[in-house]
């Protein structure tokens, strides 16, 4: 049996093809691509690319489970499941004992609590605001003219941070422009930004009740600066899958 999971987020879309035939359990192919302006097209694109990569034909796929904010808009999906259940399922595949999942995607961030069997039992999501999401970091990186991939190096090398008081992405951007104008070192601003996003996530983690082991997923989990800041403040070790961005799609494929 070959199942497919497609996760269409606001920034990127992912497809995972999972070969579960003859007792196997193998990620045959995965694709990550920008969502762009057309979520339906993005879903089709990652699905077709994953098929091409794996060598499977469309007919060989027994189920296609859609997840992410674009999940209701994928006509060829056989089922749709929220990213809450999919991330939970995906995480358990990598780290079976996980009790708390922190998922930070492009548009939303969520904290999911799991029971001893890996089932989601509660969750929290950010409100209608980009602060505390990958989009926040993207906008700020652009304002600072720094690559997101450079954040980790800067974070590790900088000791002092500057406090970013605005919680709103738009106001925080203005604040950064103002800080640059006042000659504040960019490295300190980067460090402050990382703590700013981290503090929002921590308040969600604390609301739901921190329970270890903790796993982080979503595109922002690739930003080791954020992971490190979370580990430092929560005083815990956070597990991150090899490719955190495909956790939702993998979970979807597993639930298919």
């Amino acid at each position: 049996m070959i199942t497919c999971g497609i996760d269409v987020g606001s920034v990127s879309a992912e497809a995972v093809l999972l070969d579960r035939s003859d007792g196997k359990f193998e990620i045959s192919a995965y694709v990550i691509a920008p969502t762009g302006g057309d979520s339906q097209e993005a879903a089709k694109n990652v699905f077709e690319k994953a098929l091409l990569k794996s060598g499977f034909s469309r007919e060989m796929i027994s189920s296609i489970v859609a997840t992410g904010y674009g999940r209701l808009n994928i006509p060829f999906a056989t089922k749709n499941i929220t990213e809450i259940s999919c991330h939970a399922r995906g995480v358990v595949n990598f780290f079976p004992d996980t009790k708390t999942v922190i998922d930070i995607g492009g548009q939303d961030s969520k904290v999911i609590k799991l029971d001893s069997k890996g089932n989601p039992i509660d969750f929290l999501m950010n409100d209608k605001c980009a602060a505390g999401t990958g989009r926040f970091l993207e906008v700020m990186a652009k304002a600072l003219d720094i690559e997101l991939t450079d954040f980790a190096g800067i974070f590790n090398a900088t000791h002092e941070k500057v406090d970013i008081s605005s919680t709103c992405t738009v106001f925080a951007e203005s604040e950064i422009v103002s800080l640059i104008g006042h000659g504040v070192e960019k490295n300190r601003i980067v460090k402050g930004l990382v703590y700013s996003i981290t503090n929002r996530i921590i308040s969600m983690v604390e609301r739901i009740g921190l329970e270890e082991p903790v796993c982080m997923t979503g595109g922002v989990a690739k930003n080791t600066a954020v992971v490190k800041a979370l580990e430092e403040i929560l005083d815990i070790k956070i597990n991150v899958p090899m490719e955190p961005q495909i956790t939702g799609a993998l979970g979807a494929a597993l639930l298919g």
Partner: protein
Amino acid sequence: MGIADKIKEGLKTNIRNNLDKENIKKILNVISAGPVLSACGATFASKSDKYLNIYSIKSLQRAYSRKYPVAYGSLFLPYELFHALGISPFLPEVIGGFTGGMGLADRTLKEAASRWYTPDLCTFHRSASGAVEMGLFPEPDFIICANVACDAAQKTFYIDAKKFGIEDKYYLIDVPYKNSPKAVSLLAMQLESISSDIAAKLGKKLDPDYFAAIINCSNEFRDWAIKVNDLRKELLFYPKNFNGLNFILPFHGLAGTKEAANLYKNIYLELKEFLEVQNGIISGNKKYKAGNVYKGKTIPSAQKLKDTRKILWMHLKPYYKNNLFTMLEENNYTVVFEEISNVYWPRLDPEKPFEALAIKMLSNPLNGSIENRVNAILKIAAEYGIDGAILFAHWGCRHSNGGARILKDSLKNIDIPLLILDGDCLNKNNSSEGQLSTRLQGFIEIVDCRV
């Protein structure tokens, strides 16, 4: 879309396109006329829907007609007093809620914003204030409010009183925080004093026999409402479009009228009929074959009924078009009870009407400590055997949202998950449809997984 729905849509469009008080009054006069109402009545999805609409329209028409004194009233007042005094109640918060369903909230909220009403204020009050500023509501003779649960009415209603130049006819009922014999006596005295003052201003006296008759009507309404609630402990197969969150106007504003008693009697009879059908489905009666339609509602299989998940809905709902209830239904979830349907007060003593109404107000679980609300919710949760609860956390509603955490923890202690759904009941621009449906679907998946 049925004929009644088409008529409703046509009227909404007419009101939206010709937004002024005289047009609203004209429309209410036309649709509340006997023949039109009875003709339309036959086209409603259910009896409950029919009586709800007819009595709500008649109540509004009466207030807009200005043939009787009109009093604005906040929620949770003892409206029996209004009816005993021959005053037409008009509930700005509830009618403010209608602006959401009518697609008018954008305009009323914009008007309120331009008059310095802060966006932080609950949209029920803001929309009502905007409508008052736009001259869309009937002019009041009196304004009465209480400090039960929500305090926005006290302030916004006073602004209304000043606008209409009736500060001397603005009454604030100060309901004691704790329920005690002394509190009952203090509150009863206030109610009596306010009634005497209003009666004097109207140049009449409160007729004790008529007041007792109103109290008896209120008891009759209460008895039927309790019968409805008891029946709902078993009911899973509901009439088409039935939503207990739609009955807030008659539940409060019409308490003490024959209409409220009749409405709840009809709801009871209709739900009883549906319960009989449900029992028929479960016992395998071939008359009720799954997939067939009974009074506009698709008949479920016995297994589907057995698998239905029961939900308790707390606080209110979005009144603009949304897919929350469709999503619940599609996933075989039924709202078996709503917090606002709770009959929390004892039978009223017609011999001691002021005391009885004071007891009614003080029995409200939303008055006083959050423990009162928690205890009421836990009792309902046990009686209805719910699988989960949803609290719609309406923007700006301090009294409800302030207790969200303790409600979540209390329900968790009895192993019932609570979804706190942040949104706005009126302002669709302050609610993200995608986020609401993801949260609800996520919650459904969690409950399914548990069951």
